[in-house]
């Protein structure tokens, strides 16, 4: 990401980090060392690179541009920046990255963003409002996300939380989470196990083990369950005692700001 989100002092209060930084740090922590990770553009890429720079130096980053094992030392602006190809273990064609690497279920985690996500983790990055042929807002579309969401062993979604982004029902299903509930992934023949976490700028949501409806299981320091409910478009459930997620450590913040301080304007 190249733009620092503006800090709302009322929200940040005394804290020495922004909600966006907290979200990126929480997302990075969700990745374990040695995992293979198919990285989406934007917030997921920032978090995946932060994980590699901190607790997960052996994290294997795979981008849809065909770069496998990329090790950028600055944040790429796109998924095809030169630094990804130059530092990768292998560079393969686009048909190959999807057919040989993603489709068979070799990748541990798919790391995605969303414009809208619903209570069953279905993602919309296609259109908002109106109808498909005449949308109010035309979004970029699918990219690699539908098959990343279908085929990775699990999926993590990073999204800024509001009642417009976390909605009862997405306007268009670009990438399937749990469809309309339990049994749908199996019925649709999706081989991966689906979204395990939605990480927002307020906390972490995980699917209820029975209903698969996304539920708050963790909140950042100073964030109330009421605030999370208010910034959600469905009647959001909160687990009995949501975890208080630890604030970013100085090491995490340093690494993140080092990345963001060197926006990828030029490479090589």
């Amino acid at each position, binding site marked *: 990401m*190249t733009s620092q989100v503006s800090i709302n002092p009322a929200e940040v209060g005394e804290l020495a980090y922004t909600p966006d930084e907290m979200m990126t740090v929480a997302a990075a922590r969700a990745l374990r060392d040695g995992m293979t990770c198919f990285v989406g553009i*934007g917030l997921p890429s920032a978090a995946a690179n932060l994980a590699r720079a901190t607790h997960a130096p052996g994290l294997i980053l795979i981008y849809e541009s065909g770069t496998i094992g990329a090790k950028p030392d600055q944040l790429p602006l796109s998924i095809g920046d030169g630094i990804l190809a130059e530092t990768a273990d292998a560079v393969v064609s686009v048909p190959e990255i999807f057919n040989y690497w993603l489709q068979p279920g070799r990748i541990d985690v798919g790391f995605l963003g969303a414009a809208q996500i619903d209570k069953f983790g279905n993602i919309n990055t296609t259109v908002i409002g109106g109808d498909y042929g005449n949308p109010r807002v035309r979004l970029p*579309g699918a990219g690699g996300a539908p098959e990343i969401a*279908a085929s990775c062993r699990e999926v993590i979604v990073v999204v800024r939380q509001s009642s417009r982004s976390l909605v009862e029902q997405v306007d268009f*299903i670009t990438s*399937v989470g749990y469809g309309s509930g339990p049994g749908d992934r199996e019925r649709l023949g999706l081989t991966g196990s689906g979204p395990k976490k939605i990480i927002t700028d307020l906390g972490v949501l995980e699917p209820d083990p029975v209903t698969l409806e996304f539920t708050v299981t963790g909140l950042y320091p100073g964030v109330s369950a009421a605030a999370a409910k208010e910034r959600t478009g469905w009647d959001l459930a909160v687990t009995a005692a949501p975890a208080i997620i630890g604030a970013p450590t100085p090491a995490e913040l340093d690494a993140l700001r080092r990345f963001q301080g060197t926006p990828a*304007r030029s490479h090589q």
Partner: protein
Amino acid sequence: MAEIVSLAEAVERAIHDGDAVAMEGFTHLIPFAAGHEVIRQRRRDLTLIRMTPDLIYDQLIGAGCVRKLIFSWGGNPGVGSLHRFRDAVEHAWPAALEIEEHSHAGMANRYVAGASGLPFAVLRGYNGTGLETRNGDHDSASTIKPITCPFTGETLTAVAAIRPDVAVIHAQRADRSGNVQFWGIAGVQKEAVLSSDRSVVTVEEIVERLDPRPQAVVLPSWTVSYVARVPGGAHPSYALGYSVRDNDYYLGWDSISRDRDAFTRWLDERVYEVPAGQP
């Protein structure tokens, strides 16, 4: 055998009004100079095919060259929207834009089918998505359908082959016989050229002999129609080993493209008033 010609001549001879044209290059090696020459020659009613429309198709759409877009991700990478594309879809400016929309995996496989001389390709994909259910709603024909595996009975997804009239790509080098070589992120360019009737390849340089390079893709001269030397022809994208991605241009495009007047001025100053092949 490929003919080595000027960029203007290559576009003039290869690309005609109403053609289906695939200008490929996945972030890397995007043939911008060729796209600008298409605008300059005022081609109309094109069906443009490309996985990631990127700025190059935003510019062609805004310039009024395009009737239909076949694509899988239409954003400004890392920056935001393609505003000319959005204006065409949301407000039909400068003209209505028909769209045929896929996922990357689907588009990649459609090119593979085209290059393989097959009518369709098979993948695990699209199940449960709106892309599958809405496909064909706003188009003459559906290009995504379920198919049963004849061996296991499993239901998979078939996607129709892409067979463009013309592929346009940018590569690092060609030799004097028109053999083409490129390396780095190779995208889907080989498949795009091999699935098309005709092709235009712009190159950073023309050399006496192509030295073998690890992981390089070579398109033999007899698979290519026209080669034109256009140094910097991928700018603001890049050619690994020759240039770096101009990320500031991508960031700056956001404000130019948001505004119809700013875009029209850009078109006059940076395309119509510039000679062919000059970045």
